[in-house]
């Protein structure tokens, strides 16, 4: 349904004009981020307090990957909980005890709010405080909401990290704090790079173990690894940290600007930066040159999904020669996109939010060479002759940094190459 098109906030007038759409959305809710967060934070358990739908969603998004008993589960609300026959807090304590009996070595338990728990106003913050008292410091219990009425997809990570950010110990030590889940291999690359430049103290949030939380305070310079972490950035700046303005580390150019923002904040001289960056940057540019012919001049549109759409469009336009037609993102956050503004391509229709059916109509009219979209609509668009790239793969793959720049471009080149290669079926 078309609920109307609303002009954007006048404060953002200097940036490209964003159109806000309201209507049916085809995005995951914030619970989905548990799929990668529980792999990243290896001593934490994520307990969704919700319905069977929540359990089914996380399981479907995770692709039924039952390799081991997962470190997430759902406390499924029953009729008797809603009818007041059972005390929800007592029930929750019982379920948590069950989880802890199975997993005695947990260090952190996240109580994750869902649509139904928000609607019945189940106070999970209160529950977290109570459980924390019960377990007397042996277990950190943190509540946050991953509900679809408040969060989309990657925003669940922001919700989780902003809750956890309140827990970080205070310290005024000089350090660089990289915020946002990164693949372990990328963390290691960035640490080597920052160390080579002369930034010795580099911490990551979230870390691989929830016990080793970074300390934060006035000496902490925060560099966001992803743009969807606005709330977390706000909590950290409230705690005295300095938020660095930078483009996101996608592509050679984005990565260079991102590490340079850190270098500037630590007064690193240019020679040291040049020396550290030169070799990986040259590698990235060389690898990208090889892929550019496949992408150059091809058109691309983004349906709103991962919240990575804006920096991806910038990378594909500036470093791969693609032409973005329409870029839509679940929500627009001018603050976290400040570092990208100068590089945003011209001639693009920018959308915030979604009204699915009209958006699909526009796509059918413009017929881009490639469409980035959620899993649910990829095959239907393929069946209409449009080539697609699932956005969830962009969240699950190591794509940041110099040495992944070409891997990122490859994700977009592959569907186009496949179209050239296949002699069965029809795409165009």
């Amino acid at each position, binding site marked *: 349904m078309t609920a109307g098109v609303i002009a954007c906030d006048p404060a953002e007038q200097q940036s490209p004009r964003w159109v806000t759409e309201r209507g049916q959305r085809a995005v995951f809710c914030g619970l989905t981020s548990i799929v990668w967060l529980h792999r990243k934070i290896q001593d934490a358990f994520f307990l969704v307090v919700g319905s069977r739908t929540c359990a089914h969603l996380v399981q479907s998004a995770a692709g039924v990957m039952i390799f081991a008993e997962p470190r997430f589960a759902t406390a499924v609300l029953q009729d008797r909980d809603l009818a007041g026959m059972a005390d929800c807090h007592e029930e929750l304590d019982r379920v948590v005890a069950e989880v802890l009996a199975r997993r005695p070595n947990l260090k952190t338990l996240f109580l994750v709010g869902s649509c139904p728990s928000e609607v019945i106003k189940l106070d999970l913050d209160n529950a977290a405080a109570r459980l924390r008292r019960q377990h007397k410091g042996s277990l950190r219990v943190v509540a946050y909401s991953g509900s679809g009425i408040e969060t989309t997809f990657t925003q669940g990570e922001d919700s989780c990290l902003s809750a956890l950010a309140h827990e970080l110990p205070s310290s005024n030590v000089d350090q660089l704090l990289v915020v946002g889940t990164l693949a372990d291999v990328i963390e290691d690359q960035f640490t080597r790079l920052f160390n080579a430049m002369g930034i010795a103290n580099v911490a990551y949030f979230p870390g691989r173990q929830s016990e080793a939380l970074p300390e934060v305070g006035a000496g902490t310079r925060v560099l966001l690894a992803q743009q969807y972490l606005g709330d977390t950035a706000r909590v950290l700046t409230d705690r005295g940290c300095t938020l660095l303005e930078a483009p996101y580390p996608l592509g050679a150019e984005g990565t260079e600007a991102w590490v340079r923002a850190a270098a500037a904040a630590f007064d690193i001289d240019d020679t040291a930066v040049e020396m550290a960056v030169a070799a990986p940057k040259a590698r990235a540019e060389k690898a990208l040159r090889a892929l550019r012919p496949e992408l150059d001049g091809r058109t691309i549109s983004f349906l709103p999904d991962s919240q990575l759409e804006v920096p991806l469009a910038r990378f594909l336009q500036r470093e791969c020669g693609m032409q973005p037609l329409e870029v839509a993102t679940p929500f627009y956050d001018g603050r976290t996109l400040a570092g990208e503004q100068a590089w945003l391509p011209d001639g693009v229709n920018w959308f915030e939010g979604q009204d699915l059916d009209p958006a699909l109509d526009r796509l059918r009219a413009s017929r881009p060479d490639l469409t980035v979209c959620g899993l649910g*609509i990829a095959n239907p668009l393929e069946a209409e002759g449009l080539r697609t790239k699932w956005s969830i793969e962009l969240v699950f793959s190591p794509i940041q940094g110099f040495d992944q720049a070409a891997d990122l471009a490859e994700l977009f080149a592959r569907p186009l190459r496949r179209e050239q290669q296949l002699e069965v079926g029809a795409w165009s």
Partner: protein
Amino acid sequence: MELTVWTYEGPPHVGAIRIAASMRDVHLVLHAPQGDTYADLLFTMIEREPSRPPVTYTTFQARDLGASTAELVLGTLRSAAERFRPQVLMVADSCTAELLQDQPGTLAQGAGLNVPVVPLEMAAYSRKENWGASETFFQLVRALLAKRVPPPGERYQRQPRDVPSVNIIGPSKLGFRCRDDVREIVSLLESVGVHVNVVAPLSASPTDLMRLPEADANVSLYPEVAAATCSWLARQFHQPTISTVPIGYGATRDFLAEVGETLGIDIDMTQFDDCRLPWYSRSIDSTYLTGKRAFVFGDATHVIAIAKVAQSEMGFEVVGVGTYSREMAREVRLVAKELGVDALITDNYLEVERAIESLKPEIVLGTQMERHTAKRLGIACAVISTPAHVQDYPARYSPQMGFEGANVLFDTFVHPLVMGLEEHLLNMFRDDFEFNDQAVPSHLGAGEGHASVAQSAEIVPINGVAWADCAQKELQKIPFFVRGKARRNTERFALDRGLTTIDVETLYEAKAHFGR
């Protein structure tokens, strides 16, 4: 609250979407928050559907809760009715919307829409997916046929026909091999001179559903989805229900016999002598299948049929059966009793995993959940039921039902097993460095070798009885599914005799003692 790690079934509204997605010319408006649209990917990714399911979600957000979500429902209903122009519009709540009590069904009925509306109540906090599918289909059929129900005491007057006819009820999207089962069963029925009047919900339109009363009987092909509707049709339109599920060679013959008896026709069974399962199973190379320990778990329809196939047509020994379909627990218990085993009725996959661990089957016939468990335990597995994954929707024709389905089952169950002579060689030369019982069957490629449980770790001494190294090694030469029992027996034997160390001799003394 109920702690749920993995779930066998989705919520009931996913069942409603399955019915909408199965049919033509219907549309479902689902009052649901953003995020619930994940259900689209079940159809477009797992079943590779080339179009979105015919569902419009209201996608309410926190900011809408302060205002009127009812307005949002009305706006969505109007635009969906206008854009998709369905023959019937179904309206339902997802779990969160149920709490808002906007009553979207009532709103839709009062909205002056130019389309018949079928409101659905999904009971999200007590029911599950298969119930939702059954209920949705039943409400749709009942709404469409309400005006045709004869007054009490009168019988529905069917159009006279030259040939007997049946409806096939139950196949749906995201069901297990429904697409191919329908093709197999339709052609089977046609080959014995039975006309198939309507197949529903798969590929049916509301207009087709209006023709349901014209058949002489209903085939309840998948009782989880079909039983409620079949029983209503039987009461209102005097259509008997054919309830044998034709999975397996014997069941397919029983099904045909029931069709013949119900419709009063003679069916010549000799025309079906070309089914390969009976001969393949009698073929001498299949001897090694005798007594293979099989564990069967899944939806009730498949479990009931497959347990019988495994026991009587493959010659396995069924060591456990179970289902997550609580609605059909009684039927599964009956089958378990016939087989002399306990039925496991649970939707907790951890309980199923524990059952598999303790029963130590050589093959698991289960769902995708059990496939993962079996893989972890190094046990052969074939998937026989939903929940299924993309690989369970194969490109080739691969029915489970009918005589071709029986052939498919034979292949499916034999494929993951170690072949007869290969098994003998594995048993004879256990220390062979490249050919041992941790290696996967030679036709299945590398990389999925047996894991933890098959080869248990260092044996911890119990009650002061220790295992000598040589005895431990000898124990590893015993097939893993009897190894645990051999170990326990030997330890008991040693304890009874006051031995402190078990050596190779003790092991064989114990074997002889308990083997009597």
